[in-house]
């Protein structure tokens, strides 16, 4: 007697489920939500969910609500492909990822293959942080859009700033041993040679990704090399532990980083980080715009994570603008409109360059400071703007020869 009732309930639940999903557009975040790099993926997830509420309140994507789905990949390329297939199987057409160019590389190839073999079911890959320059140069793909300045662009801006600083004569490079870390090191050496040939590179270290727990031997080495500055593209656990070890050993040399404001740094370092940790990023921690300040305080109140990256909001805003303009949420239509599109953001105008799907945007150098109005991680520390590099000076040419669908 109970069996038919249960079957009826189950069936109606299924119907309710599918009915709801027909109305929302899903964006799947494939990033580390557990494991050593969880502190890089979790805040992205929370930031996206927070901004989605605002997007939906303003009409969503062409009238349809946006929904963020989190899929844990533990920065493992094979696991990411499994998650990608899982997402595709449940009807997701937009994916985003950022932590690990190794993962992004696998995803770009997988998305290309899938779109080729399944016309009508294309998937779009919105890359928010995987900055190996190859993805918008020799490996550019029509179905991939990058919303972060790539590693070469960031180094271009950073080395401009370092070149102006005559106090720096010896530079130490330390990076993760994979495509991205190698790209950072190569760009640093080439660009410094061009802009300041007198600067001596006193060290060029690579360590395995997310494996080293104790950076004290590396800090010892940096100390004895007499470096005036350290450049590192390390992210996630690797930057947090590196600067923690440097602070513990009283290393005086400043760190010029890509991801120095990663979660945990400000709490672990405290006073020892002030005026020593520099970061190149598309935003900073002053939040002079009251709208942005509101987002920082609300997000921290609701999720205990700080406003993560402005580029995540830019990505969602561009996705909305493209869907509204194309009057569709089909990835093919969205992609056609998104390339070449511009957007007004709190730091100025940004443009999604059509040639290589690389966003062009202004960048900022910021340094960790005390007594900030909007402190990070519940402290008084945050990153204060030191220099602005305009969009035109950040831009770099591309070797991309993109194959476009007819």
């Amino acid at each position, binding site marked *: 007697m109970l069996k038919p009732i249960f079957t009826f309930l189950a069936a109606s639940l299924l119907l309710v489920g599918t009915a709801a999903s027909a109305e929302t557009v899903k964006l799947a975040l494939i990033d580390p*939500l557990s494991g*050593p790099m*969880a502190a890089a993926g979790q805040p992205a997830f929370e930031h996206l969910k927070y901004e989605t509420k605002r997007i939906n309140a303003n009409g969503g994507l062409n009238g349809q609500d946006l929904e963020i789905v989190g899929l844990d990949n533990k920065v493992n390329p094979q696991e990411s492909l499994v998650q990608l297939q899982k997402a595709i199987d449940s009807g997701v057409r937009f994916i985003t990822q950022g932590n690990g160019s190794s993962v992004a590389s696998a995803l770009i190839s997988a998305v290309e293959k899938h779109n080729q073999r399944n016309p009508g079911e294309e998937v779009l890959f919105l890359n928010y942080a995987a900055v190996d320059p190859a993805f918008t140069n020799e490996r550019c793909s029509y179905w991939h859009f990058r919303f972060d300045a790539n590693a070469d662009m960031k180094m271009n801006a950073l080395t401009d700033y370092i070149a102006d600083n005559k106090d720096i004569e010896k530079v130490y490079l330390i990076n993760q041993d994979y495509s991205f870390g190698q790209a950072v090191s190569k760009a640093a050496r080439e660009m410094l040679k061009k802009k300041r040939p007198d600067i001596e590179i006193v060290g060029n270290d690579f360590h395995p990704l997310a494996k080293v727990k104790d950076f*004290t*031997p590396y800090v*010892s080495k940096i100390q004895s090399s007499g470096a005036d500055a350290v450049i590192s593209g390390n992210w996630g656990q690797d930057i*947090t532990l590196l600067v923690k070890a440097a602070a*513990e*050993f009283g290393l005086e040399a400043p760190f010029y980083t890509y991801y120095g404001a990663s979660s945990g740094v400000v709490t672990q370092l405290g006073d020892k980080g002030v005026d020593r940790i520099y970061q190149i990023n598309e935003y900073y921690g002053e939040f002079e715009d009251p709208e942005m300040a509101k987002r920082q305080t609300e997000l921290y109140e609701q999720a205990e994570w700080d406003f993560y990256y402005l580029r995540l909001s830019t990505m969602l805003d561009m996705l909305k603008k493209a869907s509204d303009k194309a009057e569709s949420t089909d990835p093919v239509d969205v992609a056609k409109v998104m390339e070449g599109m511009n957007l007004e953001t709190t730091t100025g105008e940004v443009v999604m360059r059509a040639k290589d799907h690389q966003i062009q945007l202004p960048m900022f150098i910021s340094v960790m400071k005390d007594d900030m109005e909007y402190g990070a991680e519940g402290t008084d520390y945050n990153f204060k703007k030191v220099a602005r590099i305009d969009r035109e000076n950040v831009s770099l040419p591309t070797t991309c020869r993109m194959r476009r669908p007819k």
Partner: protein
Amino acid sequence: MLEIVIFSTLNGILYGLLLFMLSSGLTLIFSMMGVLNFAHASFYMLGAYFAYTMGMEIGFWPALLLAPILVGGLGAMVEKFGLRRVHENGHVAELLFTFGLAYVIDEMVQLIWGTVAVAYREPDYMREPLFTLFGTDYSIFRGVVILIAVLMFIALWFLLKKTRVGMMIRAALTHGEMVGHLGHNVPRLFMGVFGFGCALAGLAGVIGGPLLATEPGMAVTLGPIVFVVVVVGGMGSLIGAFYASLLIGLIQTFFVAIDASVADILNALGMNVDPYGEVTGITLASLAPMTPFILLVLILIFRPRGLMGELEP
């Protein structure tokens, strides 16, 4: 150059002593009960998390005392209600039990404390430099860690060599059944040793937590290295574990500072190899995180019983 040698030695010894704290418990448990406790590194993780949670209420030093006792108590419970029942099914069953236990503890930690690392730090006064050499600070906390590890080693030696309990343990190591026949409560001894071994791991966690990160992956990171220490030192030998931990700690720390590549070494020996080849371009510095496992392979090839282990009868 000199400062690299001095600080690498200090840091290598520190890391080695931490490994010894972990592997001593494992060696004791293995020698006594024949059980390879796969969950040993998980008890290390629990020690760190317990100290973090308790430390916020009662301070660092009380937590240093209480957390290992708590972990030891937990270990004793696991032995009494879990391992003892599995014991009759043989060694493989015990192994699988501890293997599953490791997974369970991992997930429980993620459920309770979250998937992201927690800010377990030493108290502020311990972050001051103990001494400054060549412009590099060496924090008080690191000095305290070395002190605690050395004290623990002395206490362990004293316990095993000079007390009645130690005598019973040493006897049960080689003649377990006879000890039982003589009227000693061997099951209770086992429970005590298992609990004590886990307490040692917990103590390692209390100090290792601030040194290395306190996060759910810490058991998985250190676990394999502890096994390497036990195998390289010789299964069942405490002195061997001591030598092996120091060896691994020092080599791993020193190698990071050496930029010589494989080619450099081979060329210095008189051969003529391409310094930029795929394999020959690898520097000792990039090999550093791999050294425990390279050592494991070498030991198993050339001296399988380990440095101080005994030959199988």
